């Protein structure tokens, strides 16, 4: 210890010369400078990229250059949706407002908007809270009357950081016209339904960018050129909708709604050979300009809401029997107004529309009727007999062969659009006494109007179930075709020309004539082939007296161009016939007249030559 103290405090004269210490100093300084040099090298050369990136992300501000969303047009060139820029929204860059001018700017804005001092104080507070931010939207739509005053004040330099931006608006010039197909966009310009949603990636514009070099206060730096990446406008979409036919469809739909006061109505017009949708409308509908919050009105019930097809399903049973050679149109089948099936409690009955005795043929001591006549008269008992002849497996295969129980592949449909696959019980769950009588007369299955139409369309075009489509073409802003629809066969039913175009066609033509259930739908100009359907609605687990009246068919029958379905759900209106009695609600009375008017007008619109006038004898 004493040695340590001695070592520390011993008085000794200075030992070194400043000249010598300088050498030591030199060494120390060399080390320090080498260290700093290394540090600079590390920062500036080794880590250069990283810091340069941080600098650029710091000092550039990207301003989005909006592109224009693509148009949606009909096949005949009518604009259904377009984007316009109009009006102005008021946005502020709070960072560009000097602190001492904040109150003045807020005051001036309030004054220009004709608002009170409280508004100004609130605005000033908002600007203060966002003083580090680049963007604050003050008002979405500046009243047009104030716009000029704003522009003048901005030009006068009174409002630093204030900007008026054009508002992008999606416009549907025809309102609810084809609303369920066109769809609509949300306030963020993102497609919510229909083509707007399904074709979002085509319609959406790729926004461009203007990269502005700004100082730390967010003010653009003078003399530095902006980097501009131009926006790319969205592609234009052409639907298969024919505006003329769509107008006819909507017109008749409105008429139907006025007459019958239904809960819902669905009308679809399809091009027979291709599966293209020429017109499609639902009631209730909506105006895409103001989509509202009523989800039910915005739903395309033609693909989302399955119904029990009832009599519309019968041609399928008959078709299956023809196809398998079990029956021909002339084959005689025993007719009884009621039929009890062993093992089934409830009897199958033709109650209310029995085939009159004078149309029956006595054969081997029994009342018989030809297969075609039974279908024309829509006999439940005969259909059940045919169903029993076919058996579960054949029946099941025929049904699924027409695409029931699966989605149609509609291009504006699919699970994300709520498209229903309908419902066909798996074969394993079928029982002869219950399933066959039910399915044969169109119960126990659920089908969407689109599926039903698709099935008839297959009969009309010779056995091909087409994939329905509503998007015809997508064309980029520069004219390049990005997508072109090709008619696609969804399923080949394997039905022969003889079965569909001769046997079924002849039978279905007779339905739309004086002797059939849809006599009221017959036309002088064109021959329609089709089938009515009247289903009782299930309410509270029981069949009620409310009905779904439908009609599906195609025309001209011998050379089909269009297939049409009309489904009127729960007609409630009272329409009197010429004798002053209210018309009862059946497919033949409610849906068939609407379908035939649509068919007539649509075929005229398409310029389809009229059929030769019928000989009087066939008409009656």
């Amino acid at each position: 210890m004493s040695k340590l103290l001695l070592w520390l405090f011993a008085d000794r004269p200075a030992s070194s010369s400043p000249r010598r210490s300088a050498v030591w100093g030199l060494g120390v300084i060399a080390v320090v400078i080498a260290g700093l040099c290394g540090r600079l090298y590390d920062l500036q050369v080794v880590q250069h990229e990283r810091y340069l990136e941080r600098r650029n992300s710091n000092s550039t501000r990207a301003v989005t250059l909006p592109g224009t969303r693509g148009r949606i047009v009909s096949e005949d060139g009518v604009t259904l949706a377009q984007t316009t820029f109009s009006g102005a929204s008021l946005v502020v860059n709070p960072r560009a407002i000097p602190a001492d001018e904040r109150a003045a700017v807020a005051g001036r804005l309030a004054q220009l908007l004709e608002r009170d001092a409280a508004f100004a104080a609130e605005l000033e507070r908002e600007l203060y809270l966002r003083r580090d931010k680049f963007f604050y939207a003050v008002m979405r739509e500046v009243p047009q009357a104030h716009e000029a005053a704003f522009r003048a004040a901005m030009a006068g330099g009174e409002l630093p950081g204030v900007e008026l931006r054009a508002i992008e608006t999606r416009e549907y010039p025809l309102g609810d016209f084809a609303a369920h197909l066109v769809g609509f966009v949300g306030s963020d310009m993102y497609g919510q339904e229909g083509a707007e949603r399904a074709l979002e990636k085509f319609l959406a514009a790729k926004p461009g960018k203007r990269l502005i070099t700004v100082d730390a206060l967010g003010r653009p730096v003078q003399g530095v050129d902006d980097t501009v990446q131009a926006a790319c406008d969205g592609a234009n979409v052409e639907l298969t909708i024919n505006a003329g036919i769509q107008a006819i469809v909507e017109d008749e739909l409105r008429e139907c709604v006025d007459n019958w006061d239904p809960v819902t109505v669905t009308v679809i017009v399809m091009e027979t050979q291709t599966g293209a949708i020429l017109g499609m409308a639902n009631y209730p509908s909506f105006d895409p300009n103001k989509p509202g919050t009523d989800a039910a009105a915005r739903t395309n019930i033609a693909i989302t809401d399955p119904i029990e097809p009832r009599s519309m399903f019968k041609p399928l049973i008959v078709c299956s029997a023809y196809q398998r050679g079990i029956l021909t149109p002339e084959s005689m089948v025993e007719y009884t107004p009621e039929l009890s099936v062993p093992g089934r409690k409830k009897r199958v009955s033709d109650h209310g529309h029995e085939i009159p005795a004078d149309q029956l043929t006595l054969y081997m001591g029994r009342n018989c009727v030809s297969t075609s006549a039974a279908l024309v008269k829509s006999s439940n008992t005969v259909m059940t007999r045919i169903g029993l002849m076919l058996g579960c497996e054949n029946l099941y295969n025929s049904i699924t062969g027409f695409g029931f129980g699966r989605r149609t592949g509609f291009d504006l449909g699919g699970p994300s659009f709520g498209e229903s696959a309908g419902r066909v019980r798996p074969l394993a769950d079928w029982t002869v006494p219950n399933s066959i009588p039910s399915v044969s007369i169109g119960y126990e299955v659920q089908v969407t109007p689109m599926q039903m139409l698709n099935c008839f369309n297959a009969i009309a075009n010779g056995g091909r179930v087409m994939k329905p489509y509503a998007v015809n073409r997508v064309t980029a802003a520069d004219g390049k075709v990005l997508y072109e629809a090709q008619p696609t066969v969804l399923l080949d039913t394997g039905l022969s020309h003889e079965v569909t175009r001769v046997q079924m066609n002849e039978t279905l033509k007779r339905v739309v004539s004086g002797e059939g259930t849809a006599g009221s739908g017959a036309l002088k100009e064109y021959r329609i082939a089709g089938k009515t359907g009247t289903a009782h609605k299930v309410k509270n687990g029981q069949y009620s007296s409310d009905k779904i009246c439908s009609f599906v068919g195609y025309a001209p029958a011998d050379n089909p161009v269009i297939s049409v379905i009309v489904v009127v759900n729960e007609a409630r209106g009272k329409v009197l016939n010429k004798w002053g009695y209210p018309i009862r609600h059946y497919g033949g009375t409610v849906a068939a007249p609407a379908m035939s008017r649509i068919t007539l007008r649509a075929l005229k619109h398409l310029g389809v030559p009229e059929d030769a006038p019928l000989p009087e004898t066939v008409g009656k």
Partner: protein
Amino acid sequence: MQNTLRNAYLLNVLALVGIGVVMVFSSSAIRVMPDAEVDPFIFIKRHLLFVGLGLAGMVLLQRMDHTFWQRYAKPIYVLGLALLAATLIPGIGTEFNGARRWIRFGGIGIQPSDFGKFALLIAAASYAAIRKDELGSFVKGFLPACLFTGIYSVLCMAQPDFGTSLFLGASSFLVLLAGGLRVKHLLVSVLVMLPVASVVMYSKFDHIQDRIMVFLDPAADPRGKGHQVNQSLIAIGSGGLEGQGLGNSMQKLYYLPEQETDFIFAVLAEEAGFLGSALTLALFASLVLLGIRIAARAPDRFGSLLTIGVTGAIALQAAINIAVVTASVPTKGIGLPFISFGGSGCFFYLCAVGLVLSVARRCVPAEQARKLLAEELADSRSEQSLRQSARARRITAAGA
């Protein structure tokens, strides 16, 4: 030969001043641009004024005999003390950013601590030259040195200006060590004082806490306390090898605070790249080299120590500044000599260069210098032998 050394030193300083003028203009002009009514050249004009005054002072002082300063070291020391004390008197000292560092004469503010550095260097050199024989002693050499350096430091700390007070102490002890102060005295007392001092400092001054925290983790609060260091690193790093080009700094657009004063080196590094920043570093290094050469050839001990002190202080300050800007040490508000915008700092540094030049003017030829060195070493050798014999006696005594 003497003239070559002197001219080289002068040219070296002028090169740094030149870089400074360009960089002050480049980094300050933009600062005033957006407000049209303010003269964009206001900073560079004021900088040029101080540079002009400093050069005039330098020319004047380099003509004088440096021994003059040794004679008047005491009055100069007292003047510095008085000015430093004056900053603490309300009404004379001007408060700015929470510290009283300024005295205003009319429109111009000077920092007495700038003059303080100048005065303390002269005092230390003079002390070390006159009392060279007692400097090795703890009581007679070390303690008085601590005392006169400490008073300056304490006054500075009272402003409060922690960084400058540390810098004053460091530069003063640099001279004293070169003059023969024993390193172990300094080291031991620093080691003893350090725990106490650091605890006091750390708890007393919030900003020191913050700065150390920021230094340890600059990314912790990049927009708050770490903002300046982060922006500085971005500036330096984005410079790359060749730099963004003169005037093209992005960080000076208000991203980097103090861009024309303490953090001017970051702007320089961004605009001139690694080549430019390394060149600046090299100029400081060569200044040190030249300073040491002058010190080795100084006609007397005082001149030698004065040269070492001035050059050392310049190098020390430059090293600290660059280390701060590159986030190699905790943040400390200190300018880059000759380059930063800063009135009185620039002026007094140029005056100090005048002192060095006046010593350089009287440099002795190399042979004479060698002779002087030999004499000094002979002195110390005889002292050394004395000391060794004393140690031998102690050892034998201990052995017995």
